[in-house]
């Protein structure tokens, strides 16, 4: 069969619509998941033992199981106990919990890399715990782990393709549909791969810009 990219280019708008949904679910799950991840980390550091255990269990469960299994459980399994979520919310829920588990570990690395001397100095200056955490610990920690966070963002974005299996209409699902219709596998998945690559490159590029402008000290 001849290779013909021109035959596939008219389907670009369909792919771009799918890409928009991939990005939407990724951005939402990344930011909600990261905030959740910080709280999970704080829970693991708390003096209240059940909270520590809960945080530990959460990270282990969602880090050590595949996203596809998690999505199947949320989408097809939960209805058996009465919770019925549509594909977008199921994918969002799964990716958020997954992301929270990974980012809590990333934040742990970042926060524990902040020298203790800084925290003690803040205490000596009379700063309260939350003030210290926000200004002295969190901001330098994020700067330290920005490369890891960028990596996590890109991985999460590529993982959004798993949503296609539970019928979410994101980019991979659009590619699979087009492939079935036209049978031009090489052309469609090359262009699809290119779209994923370009979006990820933009994400990586903006992270580097953020490093240069937001965390300049």
């Amino acid at each position: 069969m001849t290779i013909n990219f021109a035959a596939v280019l008219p389907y670009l708008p369909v792919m771009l619509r799918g890409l928009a949904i991939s990005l939407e679910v990724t951005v939402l799950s990344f930011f909600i998941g990261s905030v959740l991840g910080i709280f999970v980390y704080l829970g693991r550091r708390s003096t209240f033992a059940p909270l520590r255990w809960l945080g530990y269990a959460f990270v282990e469960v969602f880090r050590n199981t595949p996203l596809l299994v998690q999505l199947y459980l949320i989408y097809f399994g939960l209805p058996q106990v009465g919770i019925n979520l549509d594909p977008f919310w199921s994918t969002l829920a799964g990716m958020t919990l997954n992301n929270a588990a990974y980012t809590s570990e990333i934040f742990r690395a970042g926060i524990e890399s902040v020298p203790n001397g800084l925290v003690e100095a803040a205490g000596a200056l009379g700063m309260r715990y939350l003030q210290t955490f926000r200004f002295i610990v969190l901001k330098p920690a994020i700067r330290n782990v920005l490369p890891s966070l960028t990596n996590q963002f890109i991985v999460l974005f590529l993982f959004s393709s798993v949503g296609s299996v539970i019928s979410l209409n994101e980019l991979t699902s659009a590619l699979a549909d087009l492939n079935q219709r036209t049978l031009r596998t090489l052309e469609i998945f090359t262009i699809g791969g290119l779209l994923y690559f370009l979006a990820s490159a933009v994400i990586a590029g903006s992270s580097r810009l953020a490093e240069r402008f937001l965390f300049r000290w």
Partner: protein
Amino acid sequence: MVTRKLAALAAVLLAGTLGLSACSNGSSGTGSSNPADSQLNKVLKAGTLRVAVLPDFPPWAVQKSDGSFQGYEIDIAHELADSLGVKLKLVPTDGDSRLPLLQSNRVDVNISAWTATNERAQTAGFTIPYDAHGAGVLFKKGASIKSYQDIAGKTVSVARGSTNDTILTTDFPSAKPVRFDAISDVISAVKTGKVDAALESSYTVAQAAKQDPSLQAISQPPLDPQLVSMGVLPGDQVWMNYLNNFIRNLIASGEDNKLHEKWLHEPLASIVSVQGNAA
């Protein structure tokens, strides 16, 4: 600096894409009419026939827990291998992989409930049909569906890219399709209330309704019956001639009908069996 590198990379990839589309007419064909090059010869020489089959579509073909296959199409594959006097190797596939498996020379022929639509025939080679099946509708008891027309405006699950997908989008444009890769997920979606109905082959929905008392199916007469053929690479006329002859003999001898009755408990559709009657 970041933007310059990105722009350069994008330019290279774009040039490559345009370059490839420009040489779209240069690629070689896939198979020939020279008997020596034919897949038929390759199979006879290798002593093994590799057939792509579906692992999750009973009773046409299903892979059991011990790895072996059974079903109507599996029996046909065995007959084909016997006719050539070679061993049979079954390769599981899904809707997306049928043509890629042929193109990468991992199988010699597809016997995988492959409907020979006109659009697919532009890129794959189809034999004469050995089977025909149509669609049916599956829904939860109590849903307001009394006939095929009632699925208009409802959410309906289908297997991605299948003929049921096409039936839904062309004949019921007001229905909202929800696409899954696996047929089992299409049925699960109705069971778990994610969709109002599922559109799958008439036999599959009838079986699902029989096994689950909360589900109901409309499957007779089947909606939009379509012809199912064996699939090969286009252009290999010698191989296709052999397979066409094999199928004609299978029908004329009554063997196809016998297998169809055995697995599906109904006779072969007359639109297919008429091919066995010499003019």
